[in-house]
Structure formats: structure tokens, C-alpha cells
């Protein structure tokens, strides 16, 4: 049992298709209107059927008012970390502090290389991601003295000016499954953002993966609670319960509250392109889950009866 005690976030994972061009923006607006906390888009710059994720995030941010936005997750090998840091700060400033930075080490190396990116081995990609995170955090650290100097193996920044400082503490959330990346998250990230569908053992895998993060965090002198645990999920609403996240809204709430209380997951990002589902998730699942979690946390805080 590991609940890290964060507030719960509910969000959507919307296909950034460019046909019709406004599809993803419309669903971001719908997510915002429904009262969700977060809307996210995958980033595959080699995929011509998708929008460029950064452009889409910026455009969607300007069309929404309250919701936070993040890539899920950004393809670092095809984005320049120092420029990305400034872009992220800009967007956070323009949007009044609504950007979160989902980052990934890259995966489809053939496609990345075809686009003009650099092919890295899995191990190199982890190192590169860590350097990238350092560059980004250094650029954002506007108040530190002196220019940014990161003499990395993959990214070299020497003498770049610092800033701008984002409007809020932009969370760096990393998508990962393997121990090395999980340790990096424990050391250096603010959030972990895996997809339930990629866990071979389903939700039960979360315990072991969490442990990698927790261990690395402690070793780096951080609280495990410094890393928020988010999860991409999919499901469907049905009149009768059939399986995990396949049933009525009340059952969804129980399923999700279980994830919070058992595995410390406090960000639920639902893959959907359907407005009705978005509304039901926001109106029925989110409040019920929050209530269940609050009740249970209250009971725990009150101590054993």
C-alpha cells in the first residue's frame, strides 16, 4: 500500500489527428468545459497524420481557460532541449501556468533517425533524457547566477542565458517502464506517466515499478512523494460491470480509487475521443473517485477505530 497523498487529477488523452484539423482542439475545449484537470496529446513527429504536438498544445492552450495541458509524452530526440525549455516557459507564461511537461526518451528509432534525429541505444537514451532534463531545469532557473553550462555527452549548452522562469512549477513527467528510466524518474522527475495497457501484468505491476522510483528517490535524498504517479487508462461505460473500467461510473470510481489507495496513482488520464465519455468522466467518475479517496484517507488519518 503506498498512497503518496497528492490531490487527484483527471485528464484526457486525445488523438492529435489532423483530419479534421480541429478535432483535438475541440476535445481539449470539451475537456476544459467538462471541468477536467488535464488534456494530453501524444507526440510522434514522424507521423504525418498527427498534428505537431507542440503547436497543438500552444494552440489548444489559447482556446481553453482553466485546464492544464501536457504532451503524453514529448519526443525529446526530435526536440532541442534548450529551445524546448524556453518554449515551455513561454507557453506556461502565456497560459497563466497551465503547462506540464511530459517527456519521453524516444522509442521508434528508425522513424526518429529518418526524420533527421540521432539514433540512440536504450541506455544512451536514458542518459540523454537525464541531460535534457538538466538543461531544461537550468534554463528555467532564472534566479541562479551565471549562464547555463551543461557539458553533456548528448546535449551541450555552454553560456546560454537563463530564463525565462515559468509562471508555475511546471511538472516534468516522464513516461517509462524499465528500471533504469524509473530510477532516473526517482532522481530527477516530478512525475511518472506510464500507460496501463503497456504493463504486462496489469495494475499489479505498479507496485514493483513504484518501488524502483521510491528507492531511487530516497537514494537521491528526495521524498518518494516528490514524484506524482499518473496513469494512462482506457475503458468504457456500460450499464453493468464486466471488467476493470468496463461498467457504470460508480464502478469506475471504485476501480480508480483502488489505484490511488493501493498504488498511489493520483493522475488518471483517459484515452478517449468522445465528448460524451469526457463529460461522464468529469461529471460522474471524478467526483465519486475523489469522495471515495477522501473518505478512505480520512479514515486512515483518523487512525484505527
Amino acid at each position, binding site marked *: 500500500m503506498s498512497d503518496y497523498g497528492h490531490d487527484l487529477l483527471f485528464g484526457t488523452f486525445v488523438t492529435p489527428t489532423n*483530419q479534421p484539423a480541429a478535432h483535438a482542439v475541440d476535445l481539449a475545449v470539451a475537456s476544459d468545459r467538462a471541468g477536467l484537470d488535464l488534456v494530453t496529446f501524444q507526440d510522434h513527429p514522424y507521423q504525418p497524420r498527427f498534428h505537431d504536438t507542440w*503547436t497543438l498544445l500552444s494552440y489548444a492552450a*489559447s*482556446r481553453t481557460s482553466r485546464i492544464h495541458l501536457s504532451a503524453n509524452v514529448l519526443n525529446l530526440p*526530435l526536440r532541442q532541449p534548450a529551445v524546448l525549455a524556453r518554449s515551455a516557459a513561454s*507557453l506556461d507564461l502565456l497560459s497563466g501556468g497551465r503547462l506540464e511537461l511530459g517527456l519521453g526518451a524516444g522509442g521508434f528509432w528508425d522513424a526518429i533517425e529518418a*526524420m533527421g534525429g540521432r539514433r540512440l541505444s536504450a541506455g544512451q537514451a536514458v542518459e540523454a533524457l537525464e541531460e535534457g532534463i538538466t538543461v531544461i531545469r537550468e534554463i528555467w532557473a532564472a534566479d541562479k547566477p551565471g549562464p547555463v553550462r551543461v557539458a553533456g555527452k548528448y546535449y551541450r549548452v555552454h*553560456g546560454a542565458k537563463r530564463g*525565462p522562469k515559468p509562471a508555475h512549477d511546471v511538472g516534468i513527467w516522464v513516461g517509462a517502464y524499465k528500471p533504469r528510466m524509473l530510477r532516473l524518474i526517482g532522481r530527477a522527475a516530478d512525475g511518472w506517466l506510464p500507460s496501463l495497457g503497456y504493463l504486462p501484468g496489469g495494475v499489479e505491476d505498479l507496485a514493483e515499478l513504484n518501488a524502483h522510483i521510491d528507492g531511487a528517490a530516497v537514494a537521491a535524498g528526495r521524498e518518494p512523494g516528490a514524484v506524482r504517479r499518473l496513469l494512462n487508462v482506457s475503458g468504457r461505460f456500460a450499464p453493468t460491470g464486466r471488467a476493470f473500467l468496463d461498467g457504470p461510473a460508480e464502478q469506475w470510481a471504485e476501480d480508480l480509487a483502488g489505484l490511488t489507495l493501493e498504488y498511489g496513482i493520483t493522475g488518471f488520464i483517459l484515452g478517449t475521443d468522445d465528448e460524451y465519455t469526457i463529460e461522464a468522466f468529469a461529471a460522474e467518475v471524478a467526483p465519486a473517485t475523489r469522495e471515495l479517496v477522501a473518505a478512505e484517507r480520512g479514515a486512515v488519518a483518523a487512525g484505527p477505530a
Partner: protein
Amino acid sequence: MNYGHPLEFGTFITPTGEDAVTLARRSEELGYDLVTFQDRPFQPDLHDTWTLMSWVAGRTERIHIAANVLSVPLRQPAVLARAAASLDLLSGGRLDLALGAGAEPDGTAPDGSWDAIEAMGGPRLDPDGAVDALAEAVDVVRGMLDAGEPTPLCFAGEHYRIDAVGRGPLPRHQVPIWLGGRERRVLRLIGRKADGWVVTLGHLGPGDLRAGNKIIDEAAAAAGRDPAEIRRLVNIAGTFGDERRGFLQGPPRAWVDDLLPLAVEDGAGTFVLICDDPEALERFAREVVPALRAAVDAALPAPLPTGPVRGAAARAKRRTGIDYDGLPRSLARTAVEPGDIDYPRVRANYMRGGSPGVVLRPGSTAEVAEALAFARRHPDLPMGVRSGGHGISGRSTNDGGIVIDLGALDAVEVLDEATRRVRIGPGARWKRVAAALSPYGWALTSGDYGGVGVGGLATAGGIGFLGRKHGLTIDHLRAVEMVLADGSVVRASDTENPDLFWAVRGAGANFGIVTSFEFEVDEVGAVGWAQLGFVASDMAGFLRRFGEVASTAPRDTTAFLVMGPPRRGQPAVAQLYGMVDSADPDTVIAQLQPFAQIAPMFQQEVVIAPYAEVMGMAPDAEHQGRGEPVSRSAFVREVTPAFAQAAERLLTSGVVYFFQLRTVGGAVADVDPDATAYAHRDAGFSVIAMGVDRERLDRLWDGLSEHFDGLYLSFETDQRPERLADAFPPATLRRLRELKGRYDPDNVFRDNFNIRPIPGTEEKP
């Protein structure tokens, strides 16, 4: 010299704080054509320009947006191209792309330098290398944006390598690529490859603008381009005052005097005002712009054009035999030629590839008549009439011919609520029609797919999910407006041109171009919508049982069945799509129950939903059809055991990949067969088979003729003349021929099941 571009005005705004957004919006309000921001990724007190541009795009509606100019060394050109296409799509075609080599030693980027770029992790390039890299970036971006080109992009440069990447997406408009710079090498590059030159006047000495233009023009000519393809954009700065104190320093009239020679003699097509002062922006917009436009028009021998300017490369793709330059002005504005950015969007239809020579997109009935007149001046070229582009029998695209695309005529209007009378344009898609009628609690039976267009379906029949209860789509038609072959615009209804009205309902494509349809629609609330998946191990038996249940079901229930060939070693599966015109769950379940007993089910989804939601499932995608569909169609009265056996053989032949049975009958059969040109009222099912190999499918299908009783022309691609006799019974066909002789004696309309006219026997109308 002046290069003949429409004169445009832009602003150049410091990309900082919230002010940048405010000033961009103000620029739009003031009528500027363009807002631009410099790009200094190494400068922390400025916004990231791309992010700001994207944000501003979301906060504006009309104004174009560009960087001034984008620093290429810190951006990945292939990713940049995708980003550019995205921003252009999201903004509705408002991105212009201005690129620069990065730093220039001579101060075009005053606080940028290779040191600053390198400090950010970018490459340090020498002056030649920087221009080479820029040239490569232009090629990569152009290659990526050339989404109509089917081959993947390969590019092996010194600086950038792209290895077989899928191109696209296609931007909304032809995104121009402008380059900034003053060096001779950059200018030559502009002449060779770019669509515009962006230059800051304050960085130039006297005579430099003219000298720069000359270098560009010579390089363009050497590359076989017309220098007029290249727009010259000049960044200017100044101050307003009561008295002239120098160049662009003084009252607006003095500004006009200063700028006039730049436009008339030095070819400036766009003036971009470097200014963060809202008052000066306003003053320039209100007092300089109109006066300067008037002065330029007065100074030039001919007024500047307003329509699209096609470059040499675009004109080179024109097809022979089309009088492109003879297009009337009204149509030229929206016409699409093979070299145009929109061509990949309009060349194909849903099921069929094509390469028309020109696609005309009229926006009114009068323009349809003009388009038709233009097409008639090219009697030897194929002419296609397109509404929603879902034609299977109808050839609404072609090779080298003319397409009249009615997509812009897509209004859905309620004419009279009491009688549920609505008027619908041919270019509307059925999903939009359904969505527009839904709030009234109405629906109009259409087909099974919301993407299909009104024009093609409502002139042929309209076999849909509400058919057994509400009849065919054409049974709801009360009047049409159409353009006839001679260019006249007529109405047809039971009382006006009744013969024509008869013919339009089933053979409309042969008689003219319908420009609006008036329907009486039905009251339809939410409906029961079922998708059932069956294991059809005994295919013939399954088909027979389906036929029995579907044809004896109550009229509120209409079911379509789709089957494909059984996969190796697995039983055949069948997918049933059915609609029950009832919002009552018990009724819906009761009507579906008999279907559920036909065979074991592996999937079962039943929902109560508005008709509009079922139609709404069709995605809004652009047509990407390739090749020619191979489809055969027939009516059967019932699914007899012999036909079921034959269908099983067909399905296991390996020739058919798609087989469909659509239940008709019910209200469709209530209508007198002579009442409309669609005459096969007694059919029980419409049967469709699609394949890849035309000859093999024809052979098999022809062998089934004993089971058939006519065909529905919309699903038939066989061009042999006998098919006409299958589509229309003898008396119907005779009457159609006579009417064709009367209304279209020259056989202008022949792209869809051509009925040849019987000349001159009838009296003229």
C-alpha cells in the same frame, strides 16, 4: 519595378509578455494582413516565437502570422515542416513561413550571433555553411509539405538528412516560404527557391533594395522562374509627427510619399511596420495604408490583381485542352488546378482515384450555370458532377477533364416548421443533415453512411436504415431547383415540370445539376441502433434465415448485413447493422430478438441514440480514393435457398471482399413503380458485391442473373449497356430516353449511368 502582387501590410511586434498578444489582436482589428515576430531563441526575455505564433493563432481569426524570421539552426527542419502544416491547418490557412540562416555577421540579427546559437546547443556554421543549411532546410520543408506527392521524402544534404519519411500533412493553404537576409548568396537562393524576400529597410544602404532585387531577379530568371513569383516584404520603422523631419518621420502624407516609390519602383509588395505603439499602429492603418494603396493604384498602369497568382511550376502542371485563362472571374477564385495546394484534397473521391484538369467550385446556382457553360465549351472532355464525392457508379472525378464540385452548396434550412419542409444543398453530407434536423426531433432517411453527399444519393434513390418505415430518400422529395444542359435554371415538382421531377427521382444525374432539394422530413426521435456480430458457419443457411427475419420484421426495423470471405480455417462471420425506429428499449429489444436467434453471436451492441449520432459516426476525412472500384449490384425479391447457396459460393470464391444485403420493401414498396424513375419497388433486398478483379467478378455475378430482378444503380460499376435495362424497366427506360432527348439532347450529363437521348420525337417543352 513592381511585381504585381496585391499590396499587403503587416506589423512587427516584439514577442514579449502579454503585450505581444494584445498588439497582435489589435493588428487584426486594424485590418493588417499579417503580424510578425522576431525569433531569438537565445534571448530569455522574449517568447519562444513558434509558441507565441501558435498561441496568437488561437486568439485571432483572420490575420496571417509569420516569424520575422525563424532561426533555422535551432529548429529541426522536418519537425518544423510538420509544425508549419499543423499551424496552418489549425489557423485555417494563416501561417506564412519566413526563415533565416541564423546569425548574420553584419547585424540583421543585432543581438544574435553564432556564439549565442552555439551556446544554446546549435551548430556553429561559417557564412557559406549557413546559407547551404538554409537552402537544404527550404528543400526539406518544401518536400515535407508536398503532401500530394505519394513517394516518401528522401533528402541527403550536408546538414540535414531525411530518409524515406512520409510527407505531409497538407497545409490548409499554399504556405509561402520567405527568406530573410541581405548577402548575395542568400539573395541568389531566394531567386532560385523562395517565395519571398524579407528585409529590414533600416539595415540597408541607399540603393541596396534595388540592387538586392536585381540579384534575386537574375537568379530567378536563371532558374527558369518568373521574378514576379517572389514577393518582396520590407520591414519599416518610423515616427509620426506634424512636420517632416526625415524618411518616415513626419505626417502620414509624408510617409505615403516615402513609401510610394518603394512599392512602385522597388517592388515592395508588403510593408511590415516595426512598432509596439498601439497609437502608431492605428495611425499607420488608418492614415497611411488607404492613401498609399490609392497612390500605388494611381501610379501603376494597371490595378493590382486580387486573385491567386500561380507560379511557373503550378502552371506547368496544367492539362492540355482546357482554357484555364478563360475561366470566368467568379469561378477562377475558387477553381483548383493540378498545381494548386488544394488539388490533393479534391482530385479523388471516396472510392475512386482521379486527376481532373480542373475542379470548379461554384458557390451559387448562377455560378453552377457558369461552370456548366465553361464545361460545355470543352465538349470532348469528361465532365463530372460532384456533391459528396461518394459516387460508385457516378464518376465524379476523371482524368484530365472538368469536375463541377458542389461542396460549397451545403446549406440546410428549415422552410416551414409546421409541414417539416426543409431545403438542402447538394453539397451537404447526410451526417450534417441529420445533425441539423435532430434538434427539431426530425430525421430524413438517407443511407448507412453519414459521409455520403446529398446530391448523388437524393437523385438516385436513398436506401437507408429508416427505409422500411419511411421509404426512400426520394420519396420525401417535394421539389428541386436544377440547372439544365442549356444553362436554364428550373424548378421541378409535382406541379412544375412534373416529367422532370419524375426523372430526377431515380435518374437525376442524367438530367442536370440539382442545386437544391426540398424535402418533407419525418418526426423521428431517438432510435434503437444495433451492431450484432454473428458466427455464420453455415453461410447459406444463415443468409436464408436473415432474409426471412429481416423481410418479415415490423416496418420500424430495417437491417443491413455485411459479410466478407471466411478467413482460412475459421467460420465465416457476419455483421448486422440494424435500426429500430423506436426510443423504447423494450420495443427495440423485442424487434431485435428474432435476429439474435439466427446464429450464435460474438458481438452485441445495442444503444438508444439519436439518428444523428448514428450518422455522425462517419469521420470527416478528405477523400483519398485510388484506382477504380469494382462493384456489382442487384435486387432480389427474397433470399431463396438457391440464391443463398449461390451467395455462399460467391463468398468463398476468393473474388469478393465485401458482400452486403440491404433490406428494402416496407414503405418503399408502397409507392407506385411508375411514380418515380426508381421503379424496382417490389424488391426485398439490395445486394452488393465488391471485388478487385473486374472480369472475374463480372463472370460470377453474370452467372447469378437468374436470381436477380433489376439493380440499384448507385452500387453498380459495370459499364456494359445491358445494365441500363437492369436499372430501369422497359417502360421507365423508354420514358427516360424521351425525356433525355428533351432536356439534354446533346448528352452533356453522362458521368453516371448514361441514358442516351431519343432525338427529337417529343414536342419541345
